[in-house]
């Protein structure tokens, strides 16, 4: 790697000190939010696999024709296909990258990584989490006890094996990961960016604290009064957040806990289209579903009311007990 693996502390502090941390409204459109992501940036993605994927924001970034993004996420699903296949990202940092266990390998990932067009840095799942956590805590590393002895470690000279100064045991230090910007989708937040997350949080809280900027997309924007009535439900504080975008069904065709499950017909059709032809199939998909629609709502129309409503019925059912 050419750049330093870990940002020096003074740089980390200096970058944060330049942000406006005041209590202010920051609601913008999906299109405007794309200006927070510049070519070449390191982008952390919230959610995991098919859950709470910031899909609308990824969709908008593809439409805005970003370039050379390095993306990190706990586990990558079809979001990764779109990022690599659209050409906006050429470097993935994750622990697992396929469309989903139901569909086997991702031919899109294989095409780009095996041909050398894109890089996939593999870390263990916990290591990805501890890299975000070190970043969130403002320290250069976290010690962990996995990855040792494996070939996964041999490919990651960025991590350092040490003998523990307390116990003499072997430990691995994984370097802090502080993305330039994080994209996180939540069930609700206020106009300042105070966010509530229902159900599975994945690594989103550490990611929000680790990143130098955060773009929140949200199913709905609620009043600050509502946030202040239950402050122990706030999971991301407003001063981490730089932009708030209200995008109902912002994870489609993936799921958003308690709101909708994955839209599996769309997913099935996607997978058979792109795995049959990982270049042409993906291009055709992007043309029809990403570049084609005038708006996110028009994309949802292409998925279809039937499937959206069915996903909603299934999503809400988690609270039926």
């Amino acid at each position, binding site marked *: 790697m050419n750049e330093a693996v870990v940002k020096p502390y003074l740089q980390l502090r200096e970058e944060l000190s330049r942000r406006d941390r005041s209590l202010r409204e920051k609601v913008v459109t999906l299109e405007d939010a794309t200006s927070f992501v510049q070519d070449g940036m390191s982008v952390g993605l919230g959610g995991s696999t098919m859950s709470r994927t910031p899909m609308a924001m990824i969709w908008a970034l593809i439409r805005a024709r970003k370039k050379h993004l390095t993306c990190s996420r706990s586990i990558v699903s079809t979001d990764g296909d779109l990022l690599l296949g659209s050409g906006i990202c050429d470097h993935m940092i994750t*622990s697992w990258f396929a469309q*989903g266990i139901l569909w086997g390998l991702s031919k899109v990932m294989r095409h780009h990584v095996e041909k050398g067009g894109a890089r996939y840095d593999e870390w*263990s*799942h916990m290591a990805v989490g501890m890299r975000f956590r070190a970043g969130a805590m403002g320290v250069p590393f976290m010690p962990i006890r996995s990855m040792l002895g494996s070939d996964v470690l041999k490919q990651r000279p960025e991590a350092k094996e040490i003998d523990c100064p307390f116990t003499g045991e072997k430990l691995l230090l994984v370097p802090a990961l502080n993305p330039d910007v994080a994209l996180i989708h939540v069930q609700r937040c206020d106009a300042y960016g105070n966010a509530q997350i229902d159900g599975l949080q*994945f690594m989103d809280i*550490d990611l929000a604290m680790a990143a130098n900027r955060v773009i929140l997309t949200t199913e709905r924007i609620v009043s600050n009064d509502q946030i202040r009535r239950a402050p122990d439900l706030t999971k991301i504080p407003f001063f981490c957040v730089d932009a708030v975008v209200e995008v109902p069904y912002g994870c489609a065709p993936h799921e958003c806990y308690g709101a909708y499950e994955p839209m599996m017909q769309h997913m099935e059709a996607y997978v058979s289209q792109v795995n049959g032809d990982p270049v042409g199939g993906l291009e055709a998909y992007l043309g029809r579903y990403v570049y084609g629609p005038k708006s996110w709502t028009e994309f949802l129309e292409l998925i279809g009311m039937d499937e959206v409503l069915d996903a909603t019925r299934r999503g809400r059912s988690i609270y039926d007990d």
Partner: protein
Amino acid sequence: MIEPHRYTANEILTVLSARQLRDGQVVFAGVGVPLLAATLAQRTRCPGLTILFEGGVIGAFVEPGKLPPSTNDQRCTKRANMVLGSAEVLLLLQRGYVDVGFMGGAQIDQYGNLNSSFIGDSLHPKTRLPGTGGGNDISSLANMIVAMKHEKRRFVEHVDFITSPGFISGGDSRAQSGLPTGGMFRVVTELAVFSFEDAERRMKVAALNPGVSRDEVQDKTGFELIFDDDLAVTEPPSENELATLRMLDPEHLFTA
């Protein structure tokens, strides 16, 4: 009497894996057969089995017919005791709260090392596989049960790439690498159940499945197998096990 043709390879795999679990254990289960087998155990012999999922779930109680498509989906949280961050649930392994790690495998070797990263040379791979996910963490920190299809290309002398460590190069090499705890406990396939011998830590056949011969297992294995002196024959799936399994996975999502 249940005849072998009355169940699929994946069904016997799931049933025999489920039998490896004990009531009261805490099991960290991967998606697919492990998730299904752990749920089967919970619905039959082990009502007090605590199932963890990588998405951040403690004490899941998956609903019949609503199997989650990954361990990060909301279906995994149905009637769970706790939902927490992904890093937090993995840290339970490191702290020592997990009795059994339970995963599938794409390629395994005689020392129980698993590969889910590369087929061929990792610099110029024939196939870039999905990668470790939580597999490396689980197998580094817990006692492991692995459930997988038995094919010669999957049971190899040395994996192309150690994604999830078993006993590495055998003997005490695992502890020497910085992994003093955990290790492979059982491998279950549709043909046999395997354990690992104490000294060299090589895979050995503990039991053959009904109707399977030593030769058949050896023929479908890419390295020379050790057979236990007290080689057993597994009990075939019971009516109750099969009925419960089919109730859980009526669409044969994981048992095709």
